[in-house]
C-alpha cells in the first residue's frame, strides 16, 4: 500500500492542496497567476512520478501546455491592466556585462548539455542560454527562439516519419529526433520567466 509511488503522490497532493488553499485566499490577479504557475509544478510532478520513459515523453507536452497558458494569460494581464513596457536595461551590472564569466559558464552548460543530449541536455542548454541572455542582452529576442524551435520541431517530425516509413535508416531517425528534442527543450526552457510584453509587440 505505502510504496514509494503512494508516498510521492501523497506529498504532491499535499503540496497541491497547499497551493490551492493559498490561491483561495489571494485576491490580487497577478499574484494568483503566479500561484497558479506554482500549482502547475505538482501536476508535472505527478506525471514524473510514473518514473518510466513514458513520463519523459508526457512531461514535455504538459510543460508546453503550462507555458502556453502562462504566456497567454500574462499577455491578457498586460492588455487588461494597460501596462506598457518600460525601457529596462537588463541586469545592468557592469561586472557581469563586461566579465567573461557568464560566457564561460554558459558555454560549459551548453557543452555539457550537448554531451548529455535529449531531454536533460535540452534543459541544460536552455539554462545556459537564459543565463547568457539575462547577463548580456537587454532585450528578449523571440524571433530567434521561435525559428530554432520551429526547425527543431520539423526535424523531430521528419525523424518520426523516418521511423515509420524507412525503418532501415533508424540511425538517422535517432539522431534527428535527439537533435530536435535537444533544440526544442532548450527553446522551451529559454521562454520560461518571460512575459512577452517587450519590444517585439
Amino acid at each position, binding site marked *: 500500500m505505502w510504496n514509494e509511488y503512494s508516498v510521492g503522490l501523497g506529498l504532491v497532493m499535499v503540496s497541491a492542496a497547499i497551493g490551492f488553499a493559498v490561491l483561495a485566499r489571494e485576491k490580487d490577479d497577478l499574484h494568483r497567476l503566479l500561484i*497558479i504557475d506554482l500549482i502547475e509544478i505538482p501536476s508535472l510532478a*505527478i506525471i514524473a512520478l510514473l518514473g518510466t520513459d513514458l513520463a519523459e515523453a*508526457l512531461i514535455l507536452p*504538459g510543460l508546453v501546455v503550462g507555458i502556453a497558458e502562462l504566456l497567454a494569460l500574462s499577455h491578457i494581464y498586460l492588455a487588461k491592466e494597460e501596462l506598457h513596457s518600460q525601457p529596462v536595461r537588463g541586469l545592468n551590472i557592469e561586472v557581469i556585462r563586461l566579465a567573461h564569466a557568464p560566457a564561460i559558464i554558459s558555454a560549459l552548460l551548453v557543452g555539457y548539455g550537448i554531451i548529455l543530449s535529449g531531454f536533460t541536455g535540452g534543459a541544460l542548454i536552455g539554462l545556459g542560454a537564459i543565463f547568457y541572455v539575462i547577463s548580456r542582452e537587454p532585450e528578449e529576442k523571440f524571433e530567434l527562439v521561435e525559428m530554432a524551435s520551429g526547425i527543431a520541431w520539423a526535424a523531430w517530425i521528419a525523424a518520426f516519419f523516418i521511423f515509420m516509413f524507412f525503418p532501415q535508416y533508424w540511425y538517422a531517425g535517432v539522431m534527428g529526433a535527439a537533435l530536435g528534442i535537444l533544440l526544442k527543450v532548450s527553446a522551451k526552457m529559454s521562454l520560461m520567466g518571460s512575459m512577452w510584453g517587450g519590444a517585439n509587440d
Partner: protein
Amino acid sequence: MIEIGGKPIFFLPFGDIVIYFTPFTLTLFLLALVFTVLVIASRPERQIDVVFGGDAYLTKDISLKEMRFRRFMAIACGLASMGAMVTGDLFDFALFASLVGITNVGIVAAVKNRHVQNAAFQYGLVAMAATLPLFAGAAITASTTGTLSILQLAIPAVSGVPLAVKGLIILGVMGEGMAPFYAAKAEMFRAPGAPYVIMCSLSSLLIFLRVIEIVMTV
C-alpha cells in the same frame, strides 16, 4: 468491451495511439467539422447598438486584425475539438482538452474591452488551475492500469480506473475544456462575437459529451 458509443467503425493506428470512430464519436466529429467549415466560410457580423429613445444607431468598429485573430482561434478550437472527439489515448484527450481551453480563452480575450478581458483572465486562471486534476488523472490512470489507451482500458480485465481518478479527469475537463458561462456571457452581451463565439459553446458541449463517454467506458 463496454460499448457506450456503439461498435467502432474504423481504426486509424499511429503506433500505439489508435484513433477510432464509433457512431457516437463520428457524429461529434462531423458536428465539429461542420462548424469549423462554417467558421471558415462565414462573414463576421457587426454589432449594432440602438440609441435609446431615438432613431440613431451605432456600429461597433472592429479591426480586421482582431477579426483575423479570432477566426484563427475559432478554427484552432474546431480542430482541437475534432482531435478530442476521435482520439483513443487518454493523455492525448487531456492535451486536446487543454488546447480547447487555450483557444477558448483566446477567442474571448481578443476583444478589446476591459470587462471581457477581465472575464477571459478569470477563465484562464480556472483553466490553468484545472491542468492539475486533468494531467493528474491521466498520469494516475497510466500508473494504476499501465496503459493510456481507451480501447485497452475498455476491456473489463484491464479496466480498474479508480473512481477518484475518474473524478479528477472530469474535474479537470470541467475547468479546462468547458468554457464557463460567465466567459461566454461576457462575450455574447458585451462584444460583437458571432459567429466565432459559437465555437466556445460548441467545443464545451462536445468535450462534455466525449468525457462522459470516456469515463463510462474506462
